[in-house]
């Protein structure tokens, strides 16, 4: 009976693992093959990767898109960390009834679907464009401003701050640190793992975001990696090897960060249910 059960477990898990990994393997293998071989179902690694990469660089502006995506994701992550951790710290350390009330209102924003915000936000930035073109439509600022502050992240930092030993703040105050000094000199260094978890989920979300950049970034030289891949994927006579090479390049940074920081990633996901 027990043997039967464990055979069953292993069979199911092996199938699940194969199904989960197959699209990755296919993507990686295909990026090393010619388009013709891909369509014929070749599942062996080839030697065409450099040629695919060459074609890719010739066809699309890969490097500018990588630079745009990196810029947006890095700035979003830094600002998001700062804004959300200040707020999470403020709500928890200086707790008051009126602040809790505001906090609960902020949480309601998690229920608002982005699709409902897209139209009014677009009109808002279109209006801003007329007087302040550097934060209007088709700018990096317009991409990151609406997405940089999320109630989820504020909630995450507040939950983590509950575990923070508040006595050391008192010690800091006696040593003459200002309130802001306490935050930057004591809280920030102690909460490194919380920041790591929050940073990785924010970076990934920003690196992968599609709908809002699609709406707000209109000129080709401003496009991000997901927009570039989406465009490649909708071409009529796709060069499979080349497209898969693009996807490998787009997925690799996220995958590497994920493997290095797997624990923090999971901690960031779990932040909401603690």
């Amino acid at each position, binding site marked *: 009976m027990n043997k039967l059960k464990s055979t069953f477990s292993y069979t199911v898990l092996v199938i699940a693992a194969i199904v989960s990994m197959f699209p990755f393997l296919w993507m990686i293998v295909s990026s090393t093959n010619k388009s013709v071989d891909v369509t014929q179902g070749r599942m062996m690694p080839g030697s065409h990767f450099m040629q695919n990469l060459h074609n890719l660089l010739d066809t699309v502006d890969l490097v500018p898109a990588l630079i745009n995506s990196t810029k947006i994701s890095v700035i979003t992550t830094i600002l998001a960390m700062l804004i959300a951790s200040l707020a999470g710290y403020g709500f928890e350390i200086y707790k008051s009834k009126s602040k809790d009330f505001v906090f609960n209102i902020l949480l309601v924003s998690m229920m608002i679907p982005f699709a*409902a915000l897209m*139209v009014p936000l677009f*009109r808002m930035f279109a209006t801003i464009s007329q007087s302040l073109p550097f934060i209007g439509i088709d700018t990096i600022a317009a991409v990151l401003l609406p997405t940089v502050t999320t109630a989820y992240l504020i909630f995450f930092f507040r939950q983590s701050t509950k575990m923070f030993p508040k006595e050391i703040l008192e010690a800091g105050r006696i040593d003459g640190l200002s309130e802001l000094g306490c935050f930057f000199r004591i809280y920030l260094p102690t909460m490194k793992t919380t920041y790591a978890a929050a940073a990785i989920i924010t970076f990934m979300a920003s690196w992968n975001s*599609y709908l809002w950049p699609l709406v707000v970034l209109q000129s080709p030289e401003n496009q991000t990696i997901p927009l570039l891949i989406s465009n490649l*994927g909708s071409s009529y006579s796709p060069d499979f090897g080349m497209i898969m090479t693009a996807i490998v390049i787009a997925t690799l940074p996220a995958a590497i960060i994920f493997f290095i920081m797997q624990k923090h990633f999971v901690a960031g996901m779990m932040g909401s249910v603690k």
Partner: protein
Amino acid sequence: MITAKENHTQALQKVNSGRKTRLKNNVIGWSFVIIAAVMIFLFYFYPMVQALILSFQTGVGANLTFTGIDNYTRLFKDPTFLTTVKNTVIYLIIQVPVMILLALFLSVLLNNKTLKFKGFFRTAIFLPCVTSLVAYSVIFKYLFGQDGIINMMLMKISLISEPIQWLTDPFWAKIAIIIAITWRWTGYNMIFYLSALQNVDESIYEAARIDGASPIQQFFKITIPMLKPIILFTSITSTIGTLQLFDEVMNITKGGPGNATMTISQYIYNLSFKYTPDFGYAATVSYAIVIMIVIFSIIQFKAAGDNNE
């Protein structure tokens, strides 16, 4: 007499200075949270109010006039809108339960203490979460192509005799979308259940085994009730996610064939940025999603609450 007066003044001073520090602390506290609060109001609540106003207006582009509830009555007569609601609800009621059951099942298998290669299985099944929605959608579009590798393999093992029209048949296109979403999110949900299972006392299962409960009975009678709060949490987040489905449909089928896979989010996008821009009506459609999210969340809370009694 004098001392009493002095005491009184001292006490008054103390109260005053206490008030001052409290006031000062209050100001400092608010200044910590103010940026975040302003940003959320500016980029979530203010646009929602704008959308509400817009939903009572009509016109092309920026030339808008008020039309009362015309947009709302139009909703119920708009076949495209009704199709997108139907599609979205189909994704929801098939995909979310299938994914949650699958994730629960895998997490139970992985929670076995004697299992070997646990880390490998967990990482492998979680791996799909690393991909961006656009990237995996494009991969699945090609996997599901008429002469794509999935049809090729199914034909090789003689499960089918001719290729399935995954992307051009209204029925199979929906199935393809559901398979894709399930692939992307099962591992994500599994991680939540796995961490919740680690807090379940092993002795409960032992007692059940002694009482002769089969593994299937244990799953439905112990595991699911024990994990109810986390199941509720994941089903609400999955519901909100599915009601907003956009990236996958846009990149796998573009909403086609016809409008057979189009979602509400995609319809809002098309109304605003693809067809002649009709921002007023698009805002009305977006309120339909908000209302659906509220309704489905209430249903799930109710369903979870009723089982408690």
